[in-house]
């Protein structure tokens, strides 16, 4: 690395594609935005940085497709030659901004000979936007020269050299940002990571009625700020981004999600709304909107606000493929546009269109692997990317794959005393490659 490394002081960075490729017949706007999302995710997956898309001109990282001299001191030069650049973090107004040469033939999933792989170049440029300079390391994505497509964005693995250099800037992503200090709201418009459980966490085991995670059917399941929440009765379990169960014991909903009615004995469905990252809880014909873990004024409200029938919903999730919100009830489903706050026409439709998914779901959620998960009883089904058909090999057991349940009852006494060993048994393989040793704490 040659240039002095500058870095962002804040951890939540907003981005926006301000101008799109003009002539590109190959890449529609949604594809360009999705590729930017995944190229940023390459870096946020391994650092404490979080990126979210915004509208308007306030974005930290403004992305433009432009050509020739565009008044930033780095004129483009037509097809070939220089293809893109980005500004390092810092005080300048342009910090983080990223420009792609609109004279290039930007492609996605095309062989090397046809144009410039947009995802590969975007990963490189966002490396600059978070503070990495060029390097001569042959495998690095931060080499200055275009080295061809890097394959499927959903499966891209950053070269180790680049991981180490970005960890030197920002540290490793603590898979449980549990102890993260609450971000001062004045610092960033971005909703902070959900706060930790109440400080005076009881050390006594939960009340008698606490459910057992290994034999339960769940009322609701949701991905919230990248973590997974499993709700049952008045309790919930929380998993980190790496699917690590934060605690064998469930936490009490009312002690964390503040403002729900005390007599609420369970929830039907939960999801994180795209756009403003607020969290929506459903119960019967009512719903509550949370900013972080505090309910907003004026709730509950009727679900008819969404155009849903008053009997409520079984399940809700946001499909990453189109950022639309899908509601399920019995054997019907609706598609709702949370950006426009409007139900799409032609719904409800029959859930049979989601091949292999059972009716009367308990809930559904998208996960950080970009797949969608559907839960019912003690089982779950996985639907990859933009498919609408369950993958082979499903359903699978929720307890075993998500909640650290083995064949035996994981909370039975004999299991209890060695549950720690099992947790330790879950230790990460250390990432010892090229002589580097990196450990990360998970709580």
């Amino acid at each position, binding site marked *: 690395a*040659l*240039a*002095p490394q500058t870095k962002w002081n804040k951890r939540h960075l907003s981005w926006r594609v301000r101008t799109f490729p003009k002539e590109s017949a190959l890449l529609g706007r949604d594809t360009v935005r999705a590729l930017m999302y995944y190229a940023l995710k390459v870096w946020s997956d391994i650092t404490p940085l979080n990126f979210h898309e915004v509208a308007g001109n306030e974005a930290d990282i403004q992305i433009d497709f432009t050509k020739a001299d565009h008044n930033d001191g*780095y004129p*483009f030069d037509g097809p*070939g*030659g*220089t*293809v*893109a*650049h*980005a500004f390092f973090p810092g005080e300048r107004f342009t910090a983080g901004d990223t420009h792609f040469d609109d004279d*290039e033939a930007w492609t996605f999933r095309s062989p090397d000979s046809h144009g*410039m792989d947009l995802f590969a*170049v975007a990963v*490189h*440029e966002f490396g*600059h936007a978070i503070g990495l*300079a*060029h390097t*001569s390391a*042959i495998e690095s994505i931060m080499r*200055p*020269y*275009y080295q061809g497509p890097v394959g499927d964005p959903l499966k891209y693995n950053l070269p180790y050299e680049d991981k180490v250099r970005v960890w030197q800037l920002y540290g490793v992503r603590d898979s449980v940002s549990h102890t993260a200090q609450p971000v001062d709201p004045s610092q960033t418009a971005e909703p902070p990571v959900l706060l930790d459980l109440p400080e005076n966490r009881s050390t006594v085991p939960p009340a008698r009625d606490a459910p057992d995670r290994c034999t339960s059917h769940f009322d609701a399941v949701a991905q919230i700020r990248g973590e997974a929440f499993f709700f049952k009765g008045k309790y919930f379990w929380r998993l980190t981004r790496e699917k690590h169960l934060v605690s064998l014991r469930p936490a009490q909903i009312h002690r964390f999600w503040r403002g729900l009615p005390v007599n609420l004995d369970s929830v039907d469905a939960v999801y994180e709304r795209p756009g403003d990252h607020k969290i929506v809880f459903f119960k019967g014909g009512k719903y509550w909107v949370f900013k972080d873990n505090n309910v907003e004024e004026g709730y509950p409200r009727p679900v008819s606000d969404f155009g849903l029938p008053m009997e409520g919903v079984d399940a809700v999730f946001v499909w990453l493929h189109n950022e639309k919100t899908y509601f399920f009830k019995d054997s019907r489903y609706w598609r709702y546009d949370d950006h426009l706050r409007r139900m799409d026409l032609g719904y409800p439709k029959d859930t049979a269109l989601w091949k292999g998914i059972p009716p009367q779901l308990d809930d559904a959620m998208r996960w950080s692997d970009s797949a969608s998960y559907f839960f019912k009883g003690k089982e779950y089904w996985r639907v990859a990317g933009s498919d609408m058909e369950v993958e082979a090999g499903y359903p699978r057991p929720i307890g075993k794959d998500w909640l650290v349940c083995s064949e035996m009852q994981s909370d039975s006494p004999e299991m209890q005393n060695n549950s720690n060993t099992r947790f330790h048994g879950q230790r990460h393989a250390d990432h010892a490659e090229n002589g580097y040793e990196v450990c990360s704490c998970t709580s």
Partner: protein
Amino acid sequence: APSITAEQMDMGVDWLSKFGYLPPPDPVNGQLQTKEALTKAIKAMQRFGGLEETGVLDQATLGLMKTPRCSLPDMSEPEMSTGRRKR
């Protein structure tokens, strides 16, 4: 190796200045780059690009200079100014 044309030399010098291997020519006296500075800059570029450090604009070096790339320089300003101070 075939000797390079004046045009290739110009392209090479522009490229090396653009990506931080050579200080931009002095706008006042249009000071030309010294041969030693040029050789040093070519070697630095060849090293950074994983090429054999011949110090001359051979075909491999000219080829790499034509490869699509990021606009940002490879060398930072301080890197170059130390070179100037040394001179």
